[in-house]
């Protein structure tokens, strides 16, 4: 009789203990996940703090003039970010000017024209471009693209467009092979897959009803794309472009091989130049003196701010189109 009275009580105790332990374990697990998520946030904040702290000596020495000074003299310790900033912006612009039309073309092809069985393979092939590491692009750009451009395209451009007044300045100078133009082309190829895949996804969000109605009215495929699909998805399109731009701005290895490493700003697109990341990659390991190192970190800070801004805008735009990117 006594035994049967104990059993229910023990079972209850065991159950209670189990429940309490489960709460503790749950809280522990929750804490782990929260800590991990916070870790990511701390890392980014850490990056910002490290950059600001590292850049401070240079920024306080040169002030805001740092951004508009072209001179870069490690021996006299006079540094200016203008040449790297110029190179970064111009190469990215060239990449966008070439990359956006081609990406749009590919996306239009994949969504409108491509026969169904080919869509997946071609889509995958374009995405493979994204997987190729940037150092491979650098190798290919330096050993294959640059000599080709130097012997064929560049002399042609100099001889023809170089003589046209006004635009001529953009194509003047010697055919170096490497330089802003070559780097821009390599970057264009690198951002292709990013812009293409987002453009294609965004195109696919256009309601079938809208397109069918347009076709029903007798519009041609191109007219549907131009007047219905693109305007409807324009926010997402700009978001995709910004994402590609963010990638192009921060690209290091591909550009370092083919940019020409010159701290002079020249009007010609064929001239050698430098970008922020190429400057850091080339000069950081041998920067003697605190001011030199700090100036390079300051360049890194500028790059971080620019890409942060571009990426933030891209995410905001894409969030408004409910595209998962």
């Amino acid at each position, binding site marked *: 009789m006594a035994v049967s009275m104990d059993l229910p009580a023990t079972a209850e105790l065991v159950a209670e203990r189990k429940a309490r332990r489960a709460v503790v374990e749950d809280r522990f697990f929750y804490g782990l996940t929260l800590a991990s998520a916070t870790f990511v*946030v701390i890392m980014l904040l850490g990056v910002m703090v490290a950059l600001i702290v590292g850049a401070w000596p240079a920024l306080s020495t040169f002030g805001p003039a740092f951004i508009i000074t072209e001179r870069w003299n490690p021996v006299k310790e006079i540094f200016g970010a203008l040449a790297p900033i110029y190179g970064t912006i111009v190469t990215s612009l060239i990449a966008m000017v070439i990359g956006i039309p*081609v990406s749009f073309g590919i996306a239009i092809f994949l969504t409108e024209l491509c026969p169904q069985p080919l869509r997946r393979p071609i889509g995958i092939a374009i995405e493979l471009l994204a997987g190729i590491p940037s150092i491979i692009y650098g190798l290919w750009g330096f050993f294959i693209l640059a000599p080709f451009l130097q012997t064929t395209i560049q002399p042609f451009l100099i001889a023809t467009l170089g003589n046209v007044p006004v635009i001529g300045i953009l194509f003047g100078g010697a055919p170096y092979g490497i330089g802003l133009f070559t780097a821009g082309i390599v970057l264009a190829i690198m951002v292709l897959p990013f812009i293409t895949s987002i453009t294609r996804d965004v195109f696919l969000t256009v309601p079938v009803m809208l397109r069918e109605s347009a076709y029903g009215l007798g519009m041609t495929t*191109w007219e549907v794309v131009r007047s219905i699909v693109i305007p409807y998805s324009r926010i997402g399109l700009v978001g995709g472009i910004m994402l590609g731009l963010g990638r192009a701005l921060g690209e290091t290895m591909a550009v370092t091989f083919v940019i020409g490493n010159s701290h002079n700003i020249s009007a010609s697109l064929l001239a050698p130049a430098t970008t922020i990341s190429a400057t850091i990659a080339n000069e950081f390991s041998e920067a003697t003196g605190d001011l030199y190192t700090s100036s390079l970190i300051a360049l890194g800070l500028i790059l971080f701010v620019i890409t942060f801004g571009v990426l933030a805008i891209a995410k905001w735009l894409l969030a408004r189109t409910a595209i998962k990117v």
Partner: protein
Amino acid sequence: MASYARRRASNTIALSLSMVATVIGLFFLAAILVTLLLRGGLAISPKIFAENTPPPGSDGGLLNAIFGSLAMTALAVVFATPIGILAGTYLTEYSRGSKLGEVAKFINDILLSAPSIIIGLFIYTLLVVPFGHFSAWAGAAALGLIALPVINRTTQDMLGLVPNSLREAAAALGTPKWKTMTHVIYRAARSGILTGVLLAIARVTGETAPLLFTALNNQFWSTDLGAPMANLPVVIFQFAMSPYDDWQRLAWGGALIITVAILALNIVARLLSNIGTSK
């Protein structure tokens, strides 16, 4: 009102141009892969996997570089995977809709797309300067920090795909939340999360810039994690920019090895996610 013929003509032109664009894209892909195969193929021999990087003007292999890359990538994955999965878990399971969660997701995506050279600079100030020397640990940390947001993001996406019915069923059975996660949800999203890890490895394999200021390079065989360690990307960079034919050949060989590894990882990842979704 534009004439029908003109509209048809502009249609044909536009669509032809789109086809041209696709051909251009595919052409560059082919050009790069063919170059890699031709020039890198010349260097691939058993020697490349058996000997260390040679001094200029002599022949050799890439053994120490391959080992270094494998070691640092492995360490990076060991570090980034648990944190990435747990962080992704928090952002999907615990913080749905909360402001903090949205901010954390946003910051993760910024870290995901941040220039890798910035990560390298950060780790340099954190793990190289205080210790006074370059090290494989620093290199692994830099690679880990690049892999972390990738794993975090894919975990979020994959966990989001797991139907809520699973979670509700487990709760109805009285399962503690953590057990639900580890025994039910993770198992359901297993192939997706693994895909994420593979993609992170693929991403990290080709990274050069962050290693330039952290692990640097080492021309000899070394397993010392506290010292500079050879790695494929930096070796390729150094060898490619030299005038020595032997070195350049090895650089292309290394480039081919990296690309094949990344493509293989991508294919496996794709196959895995197909298996996962077809279940």
